[in-house]
């Protein structure tokens, strides 16, 4: 045991001596959480739209004003003809064109019907749907004003909504759990796989193996410092989200921290597993980054809800640990639910950790023989 502690201490010193890596280890989570908190969000804002107004009458001016003053859209250059649409969209200057047909007001009053045509840039489908939806909603609102202004009638059914868990509709609620999940698995897997592979590549592993330390102690000694560092990282993220974004942990903090430790342990074992199958640091880094980054971003439910994906991805993403941790952290942190809601996900993480450890020990033993 004493020998083991000495070894752990040596590993710690090793890490702390590399000042730059230390800085980055703490900078990455901090910067990313701020990035997502302040910079990246999925709302529609300031999308530039151009108008092709073939009537220029009272009604179209009113509607144009209503759309432009909504805060979602930014008014681009006016277009004069259909021919200009393609050029404007192709140059990527605008996201949508709103076309008012000829004789808009007259048709609306005499026929009771006039048409607005929205053309959006489908090469950015997300932007296109959002813009279409928002413009349609504004026009629907305008429609109901027309009804109530023109007649004495009122709308009888008045719906109201309560936004659960996130009343102010901040996108941080979505991103904070995602960032913790993403960063932890990438950094942990990267760190452990590099540090173990490094010893292998430079031949220092053999020196360790002939020492009185058992292989399991060597591996543990290598991951203990990273376990502690990662845990500190999580705490930094949680503090930032509490004090910068006003996003407190609603449920039990103890439960959250315990689950986080489990997840870190899982990610570290994944790193060990990677290091047991590769020979060089280059390979380890390639697998942990190129191999894992995109799947961890895309198949975890971080930005894209799994429920929206084709059915088969329910199965594919079922083997992605980040998916489960995001559910866990959303439940405990944002919904404030207890362990009974997340035991299945927790169990999966435990199983995955055991699987990774058993598999790497077997690989390791084969190599030693």
């Amino acid at each position, binding site marked *: 045991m004493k020998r083991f502690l000495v070894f752990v201490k040596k590993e710690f010193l090793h890490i702390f001596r590399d000042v730059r890596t230390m800085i980055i280890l703490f900078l990455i989570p901090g910067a990313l959480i701020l990035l997502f908190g302040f910079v990246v969000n999925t709302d529609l804002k300031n999308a530039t739209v151009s108008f092709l107004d073939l009537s220029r009458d009272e009604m179209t001016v009113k509607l144009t004003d209503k759309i432009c003053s909504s805060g979602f859209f930014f008014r681009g250059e006016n277009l004069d003809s259909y021919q200009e649409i393609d050029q404007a969209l192709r140059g990527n200057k605008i996201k949508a064109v709103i076309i008012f047909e000829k004789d808009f007001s007259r048709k609306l009053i005499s026929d009771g019907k006039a048409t607005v045509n929205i053309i959006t840039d489908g090469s950015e489908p997300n932007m296109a749907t959002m813009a279409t939806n928002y413009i349609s909603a504004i026009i629907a609102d305008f429609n109901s004003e027309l009804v109530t202004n023109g007649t004495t009638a009122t709308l009888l059914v008045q719906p109201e909504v309560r936004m659960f868990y996130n009343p102010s509709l901040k996108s941080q609620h979505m991103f904070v759990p995602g960032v913790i999940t993403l960063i932890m698995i990438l950094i942990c897997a990267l760190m452990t796989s590099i540090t173990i592979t490094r010893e292998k590549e430079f031949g220092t592993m053999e020196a360790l193996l002939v020492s009185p330390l058992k292989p399991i102690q060597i591996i543990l000694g290598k991951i203990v410092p990273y376990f502690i560092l990662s845990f500190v990282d999580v705490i930094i993220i949680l503090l930032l989200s509490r004090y910068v974004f006003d996003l407190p942990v609603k449920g039990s903090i103890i439960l959250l921290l315990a689950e986080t430790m489990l997840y870190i342990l899982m990610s570290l074992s994944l790193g060990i597993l990677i290091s047991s199958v590769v020979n060089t640091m280059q390979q380890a880094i*390639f697998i942990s980054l190129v191999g894992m980054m995109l799947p961890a971003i895309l198949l975890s439910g971080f930005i894209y809800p799994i429920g929206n994906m084709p059915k088969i991805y329910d199965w594919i993403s079922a083997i992605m640990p980040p998916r489960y941790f995001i559910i866990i952290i959303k439940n405990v942190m944002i919904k404030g639910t207890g362990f009974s809601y997340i035991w299945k996900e927790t169990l999966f993480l435990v199983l995955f950790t055991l699987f990774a450890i058993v598999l790497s020990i077997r690989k390791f033993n084969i190599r030693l023989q």
Partner: protein
Amino acid sequence: MRTIYYLIRKEFIQIFRDKFLGRAIFAIPIVQMLILVPAVTFEIKEVRLCIVDKDMTTESRELVGKLVGSTFFKVGHTTFPEREANELLNRDQCDLILQIPAGFGKDIGKGTPTQLMASANAINAMNAQLSWAYLNGVILDYNMNILAREISSRSFSPIPQIEVTNRYWYNELLNYNFYMQPGILGILVLAIGFILAGLNLVKEKEIGTIEQMNVTPVKKYQFILAKIIPFLIIGLIDLALGIAIGILVFNVPFEGSIWLLFLCSTIFLIAVLGLALLISTFSGTQQQFMFTGFFFMIIFILMSGIFTPIESMPVWAQKIDLLNPVVYIMRINRMVMLKGSTFQDIQTEFLALVLYAIATTTLAVNRYRKTA
């Protein structure tokens, strides 16, 4: 020139001697593209709606019928107790709850306004807003029906209504694959080149072979070029494979000039490879390079506009994003492939990449020291 040839030859031998990496640089992008591209969609397939109908009248049933009939909502549960509905929300088994209060039908019959209460799981704020907007739409429609019945019984003038029609250009059916495929391809090409080139240089430092190079008359620019070109070629091969997959598997249209796309990608790759080498001249170990590189890469990718719109970022962040090369290539890929944009349309982005490439490679050559 001959010197560069020998250096490049050496890099290629080394890359492909590593059996794992030699295969992975082509296999990983192919596999990831095939798996990841179809997964990603912002389109909400269905909103799981739970209705708590405390009224149970013809009127409330008409509204429920309208919701059941809409393709957007999947009415999974209709329960009576509210508590049960909230539990469903907690367990993530429904996204939206609509409560129809008792007396709803009676109020409508009398012509007095009545309220509906909806509760949404708003952790994903965007989804919540969108489902709420759809619900609102259905309810508005329901309102209009009531009004129309009432008004048409009194007068003959129709209710003036503006109709909305819409079209998505360049991607009529709003196929998300068309959008994600060029994006994911761009990220993969970036990641592979960036990591391999950067690690390659640091590794030579770490194991000391760079010393042997430094006592030869190899010029600094030759050395850096010989580190860029192999990964540039690999990147372009990956790009060609990716485009082929896009066209053959995902039917992504290719409207513009393929040469223009390759020209832009070449410049983009030179820019990011130069940056990778620049970072590695500052790094002593592969580990150091990796963490610095990871930091840059993840910020580049997440701020590239592919996952979330750039327009939604604050203005200061958009300004910082001017330094993000990935933004430009994402835009160019999409514009050239889907919209058939010509050089004229993308010249700003093109110029930005050219400047970027010149800056990073010059700095990398300058920072690389043959003497200590």
